[in-house]
C-alpha cells in the first residue's frame, strides 16, 4: 500500500483536510463520519456524527479533547454495528482507548474505519475556549509543528508526557510530523479498508519519507524524556500522609471516573447504594475516630479505581481535565500505570489481539505469591 500526499491549498490546512473528508463522505463508501467540529459559538470543538457532506465543517487539528472519542464510538457501536461503515477521525490516545474498549467488549470496530491524526497535543478546555494568543488555538498548534515554538506551557500534562502521539492501529493516518502542514500532509494507508476507501480520491504520490522518519524519531524521544522526567518527579508522592494530602481537595464527584474511557461499568460500585449507611452506622464510624470527614471514602474510591483501570490506562488525562478541584491526577496515575503495565509487560492499546492481563493467567507464573 503506497502512501499519498494531500496538497494543502492556500496554506489552509484545516479546510484542505475538510475538503478531503467531504470527498470521502460524498463517495458514499462511508455512511457517516465522526469528526471534531466547532460548535456554532466557536468556543470549542466536539465530536460530531455527520452524514451530510454539506454540513461538514470539521477541524481535525483543534487542540482540544473535551470528551473521550473512544467512549463515543463505544456508545455508537455497543448495541450493534451500523449497516454501513462509519469513518472516525481520532487522536492517537483515543485509538488506544478504543482498542482497549474493543478488548473489554464495549465497542465493535468491524464497521468502523479509523482515520488517525498525528497529534500535536491538546489544551485544557478553558485554555482552548479563551485562548490568550493572537492566533486561533488551531493555528498556534499547527505552527508549533514547523517552527520551534514551545507549546508545553499550554498543553495538558497528559499531552506533554504522551507516550505515543502517532496513531497506531489506524486504517488511514493523516500525518503532519516532518511535513510543512501549510503545504502538504501525509495520507498513510495502513489497511485494506483504508485502501478501498481512498480509491478514486485524488491524491499525489509520496516523494521523500526521510524527513518524516526523522521527525517521528525526534518526537518519540522528546515525549519519552518528558515522561520519564515526570514519573521521576512525581513517583515521590509516597505514603499515607502524602496521599491524604494529595486527595484532600477531592469532593467525591466521580467526574474522573465518568470521563475515563476505560471506566466503562454501567453502574459503578461507588455510585451504587452500597456506601449509603444507616444513620447510626455513620455515628458509629465517627465514634471510632472521634470524627470523620464527609463525604468520605474518597481515597478508597481513587485507590480502587486505580486497581480497576490502571492496567488499561492509555494516559489520555481526561480524569485530570474533568476534576473540578484541580487535583493533578496524572502525577499519580502516570507512575502507577507505568509500573503496573511494566509488571505484566502490557502496552494498552497497541495490539488488539493481545488479551488484557487481568483476564488471563499462566499456571506457572508469580509462584512466590501465596507461598510467602
Amino acid at each position, binding site marked *: 500500500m503506497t502512501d499519498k500526499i494531500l496538497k494543502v491549498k492556500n496554506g489552509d490546512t484545516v479546510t484542505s483536510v475538510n475538503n478531503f473528508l467531504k470527498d470521502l463522505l460524498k463517495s458514499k463508501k462511508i455512511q457517516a463520519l465522526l469528526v471534531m467540529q466547532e460548535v456554532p459559538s466557536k468556543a470549542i470543538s466536539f465530536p460530531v456524527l455527520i452524514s451530510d457532506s454539506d454540513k461538514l465543517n470539521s477541524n481535525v487539528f483543534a487542540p482540544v479533547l473535551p470528551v473521550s472519542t473512544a467512549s463515543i464510538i463505544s456508545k455508537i457501536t455497543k448495541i450493534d454495528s451500523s449497516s454501513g461503515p462509519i469513518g472516525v477521525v481520532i487522536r492517537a490516545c483515543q485509538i488506544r482507548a478504543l482498542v482497549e474498549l474493543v478488548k473489554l467488549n464495549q465497542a465493535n470496530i468491524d464497521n468502523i474505519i479509523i482515520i488517525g491524526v498525528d497529534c500535536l497535543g491538546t489544551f485544557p478546555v478553558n485554555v482552548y475556549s479563551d485562548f490568550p494568543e493572537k492566533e486561533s488555538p488551531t493555528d498556534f498548534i499547527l505552527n508549533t509543528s514547523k517552527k520551534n515554538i514551545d507549546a508545553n506551557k499550554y498543553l495538558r500534562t497528559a499531552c506533554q508526557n504522551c507516550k505515543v502521539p502517532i496513531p497506531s492501529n489506524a486504517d488511514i493516518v493523516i500525518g503532519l510530523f516532518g511535513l510543512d502542514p501549510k503545504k502538504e500532509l501525509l495520507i498513510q494507508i495502513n489497511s485494506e479498508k483504508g485502501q478501498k476507501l481512498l480509491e478514486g480520491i485524488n491524491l499525489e504520490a509520496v516523494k521523500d519519507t526521510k524527513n518524516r522518519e526523522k521527525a517521528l524519531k525526534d518526537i518519540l524521544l522528546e515525549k519519552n524524556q518528558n515522561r520519564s522526567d515526570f514519573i521521576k518527579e512525581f513517583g515521590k508522592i509516597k505514603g499515607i500522609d502524602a496521599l491524604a494530602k494529595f*486527595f484532600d481537595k477531592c469532593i467525591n464527584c466521580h467526574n474522573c471516573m465518568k470521563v475515563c474511557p476505560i471506566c466503562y461499568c454501567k453502574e459503578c460500585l461507588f455510585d451504587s447504594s452500597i456506601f449509603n449507611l444507616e444513620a447510626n452506622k455513620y455515628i458509629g464510624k465517627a465514634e471510632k*475516630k472521634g470524627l470523620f470527614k464527609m463525604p468520605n471514602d474518597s481515597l478508597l474510591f481513587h*485507590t*480502587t479505581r486505580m486497581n480497576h483501570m490502571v492496567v488499561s490506562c492509555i494516559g489520555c488525562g481526561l480524569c485530570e481535565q474533568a476534576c473540578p478541584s484541580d487535583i493533578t491526577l496524572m502525577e499519580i496515575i502516570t507512575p502507577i500505570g507505568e509500573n503496573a503495565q511494566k509488571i505484566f509487560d502490557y502496552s494498552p492499546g497497541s495490539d488488539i489481539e493481545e488479551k488484557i492481563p487481568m483476564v488471563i*493467567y499462566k*499456571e506457572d507464573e*508469580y509462584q512466590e505469591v501465596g507461598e510467602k
Partner: protein
Amino acid sequence: MVIKMEDFEPKIVGFLCNWCSYAGADLAGTSRIQYPPNVRVIKVMCSGSVDSVYILRALLEGADGVFIGGCHPGDCHYLDGNYKARRKAVLMNSILDTLGLEKERIWIRWVSASEGQKFADTIKEMTEAIKKLGPNPIAKYWNI
C-alpha cells in the same frame, strides 16, 4: 488513647474461599487446633472474587491486616479463580508499592480443606508479623 505495643492485638480481616480455606479453618476448629482470635473471617465463594475494594476498604477503615485464603493453584473449584486472584495480588502489590503503602499487611495464602493445621499456623504467623508491624497508621486518618 495510646496502646502499648505489647497489648496491641491486631485486627485481621480474612476472606476465605468457600471450598478450600473456609473448610480448612473449619477443620482447624473441629480438630480443636488453637489459633489467635485476631482474624475475623468472611466467607467468599472464591479467592478470585475478592475485589481490590474489599481489601482496600478494610485497610482504609483501620484493619491492621487482610488475609485472603484460596485453594492451591490447580485446585480451584472454579478452575482458575485463584490464578486470577494471584494476578490481582500482583497488581495490588505494584500499586501499593508505587503509592508507598504497606503491602506487608495483605497476605494471600493457599490453604486446602484438609490443611487445618496449616490454616492455624498461617494465622499465627500472620498475627505475629502484624504485631511486629504495629497498628495500621491509616486508622488515625479521619480525612481520607
